[in-house]
């Protein structure tokens, strides 16, 4: 390096020192890079944003025409010009709630098992299994729910309605104690669809919770043990409070997924447009299953009504996911812990 400059110096004419320009601006190649990257970003922004705007725009004529009755009417009979989503929304929430009630304790327990109880050698296998569970296509869970789960779950349904039938949600409109009980009254219900959806919610919620539980500060864990806590005592005193944000956030993410799930629900339920809280009884309807079932024969105004139902669903899932993101973001991060 030095020899080269020394050899070059005598031949080259000595010029005045020029200060380097410290902010030369962007090189031409970078200018191209920036504009290309920005245009891609803007394109994706426009594309994805336009979906939301499009759905909202399509909803205007329907909402204008049916007004508030769109939200209060339960029947969906376009041929009679009676359209409403109250029963559909109720069904959507029933399926999602069943899924959450089943998936939430299992997800918390599985996340705790992976982060606290599993032997170290099994841990990475367990994480892979949960990821695999998330990757299984929803139609496969639909098949599982319809062919394997349903014939078994109707016994549970009947049992619940026999002994808890005095609660309105567990009531089924048939005699559960009859010698030949009406099995078909217990099939294709929101309960069974919810069980299948729980299989999709569970890995999603579990992955978020496990990530947060694993970050629970080691110093506080050791402190709890040093004070004589049992393992469960440590979990209750350290891991669960630390992971509260992750638990809520993961559950909300799962709820968002459960509300939008289509094909597994479509396979299991038989459509019914009644406002009913009897989740064990045959027949219910969810928003996405309604869209998948009705888009084919829809005229343009009916399509607009379906799009409106979809828009309402989108607004709900968007709200749920936003709340989830806030909770996950607010959860105490490992950076603030003292060791």
């Amino acid at each position, binding site marked *: 390096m030095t020899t080269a400059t020394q050899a070059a110096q005598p031949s080259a004419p000595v010029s005045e020192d020029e200060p380097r320009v410290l902010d030369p601006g962007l090189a031409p190649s970078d200018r191209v890079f920036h504009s290309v990257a920005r245009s891609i970003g803007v394109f994706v922004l426009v594309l994805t944003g336009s979906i939301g705007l499009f759905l909202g725009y399509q909803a205007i004529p329907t909402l204008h025409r049916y007004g508030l009755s769109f939200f209060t009417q339960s029947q969906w009979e376009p041929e009679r010009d009676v359209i409403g989503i109250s029963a559909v929304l109720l069904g959507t929430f029933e399926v999602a709630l069943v899924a959450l009630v089943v998936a939430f304790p299992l997800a918390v327990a599985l996340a705790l*098992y992976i982060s606290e109880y599993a032997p170290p050698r099994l841990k990475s296998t367990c994480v892979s299994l949960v990821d695999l569970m998330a990757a299984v296509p929803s139609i496969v869970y639909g098949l599982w729910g319809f062919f394997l789960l349903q014939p078994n779950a109707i016994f549970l349904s009947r049992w619940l309605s026999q002994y808890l039938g005095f609660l309105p949600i567990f009531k089924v409109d048939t005699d559960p104690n009859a010698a030949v009980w009406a099995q078909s009254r217990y099939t294709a219900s929101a309960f069974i669809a919810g069980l299948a959806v729980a299989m999709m919610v569970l890995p999603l919620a579990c992955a978020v919770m496990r990530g947060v539980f694993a970050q629970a500060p080691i110093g506080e864990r050791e402190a709890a043990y040093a004070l004589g806590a049992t393992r469960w005592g440590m979990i209750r005193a350290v891991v669960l409070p630390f992971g509260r944000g992750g638990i809520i956030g993961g559950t909300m993410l799962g709820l968002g997924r459960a509300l939008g799930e289509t094909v597994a629900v479509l396979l299991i339920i038989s459509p019914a447009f009644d406002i009913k809280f009897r989740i064990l009884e045959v027949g219910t309807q969810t928003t996405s299953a309604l869209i998948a079932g009705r888009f084919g024969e829809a005229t343009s105004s009916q399509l607009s009504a379906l799009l409106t139902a979809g828009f309402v669903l989108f607004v709900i899932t968007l709200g749920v996911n*936003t709340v989830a993101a806030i909770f996950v973001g607010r959860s105490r991060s490992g950076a603030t812990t003292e060791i």
Partner: protein
Amino acid sequence: MATITKPPVTAPPGAPTATPPNQVADRPRPMRTRTLDEWTSLGGALLGSVALVWLVFEKILAWSGTLGFLVCWYIAFLALFAAVTSMGNPRPVVVDRLAAAAIHASALLVLFALGSTIIYTILKGFPALLHLNFFTQDMAGVGPDAPLTKGGVLHAIAGTLVEVAIAVVISLPLGIGTAVYMTEVGGRLSKTVRTVVEAMTALPDILAGLFIYTTLIVAFGFPRTGLAAALALAVTMIPIIARSAEVVLRVVPGGLREAGLALGASQWQTVRRVVLPTAKSGLATALILGIARAVGETAPVLITSGASTFLNVNPLNDPMNSLPLFIYTSVRSGQPQAIVRGFGAATLLLGLVFVLFIATRFLARQRVGRR
């Protein structure tokens, strides 16, 4: 405690350092292992509850159903386990053991559910997979009740591959380009892009299909083709790929970027030669996650592509079938043969997802920075 009750004066002068006979040396509490007491109460409670529930459930009350039996058994087990443990242990230990039992049982239950899903699908689909024509023929002219020696899912496999390939070609550059824009270029607008992209991951998959259906097929009058399905898949994939790619690019150490710039490289050169190669395996993971999601998507395909029974590899003309759609239509037809075919296709789909999944694991294991 013991040393206080026994004054040290009485200790024999010959052995001043020896511990008094009744003082136990400190031993750490076993946190990970189980004592004999725990094992025996566990085993006893398991056996006792099986016997009890069998007697009550099957013999006295004459209920039926495997699921109900298991539920009752588990509740009886927890009660017995708590009762046995509380005979010789304080309350925190009882709670600890019950919690451990509940957590282990939940993990086993989830494992059982996942295992039963996969094994049941494979077992039901196995008869279809035994015939070679299942892989080499399509369903043209084959009724849903035709024997398994006729017809196959070649058209669905081809359709899935074509649709996913087009969706990847569209969504990969857009997704990674968006991620590069959000992490490397930045600026005010990038925050808006990030917010909207994150919001769009909440889009229920069926709405992506409905969007393409309403705009492309109803408004512009295109027929239902593989291209429409691929576009719907791309719409669902772009936010997924963009978000996970952004996470990967964000963890590339800033020092590497600065080193590249300090060597006189332009930002584009730094991104192309340093940042993207460093994050290569993570980006591949993001892509494969997106593909795995798209391969299994049924709802958008159901709306946009139309189900053909014949082999069609041209995405611009004619309807095109795909594996999830084939599964859905076969199972819905209700014919036993068609259901077996549907399960066979589901096994293929699971295998495809599994291969992608293994590839993800393999790529994720490669360390960042080795290129």
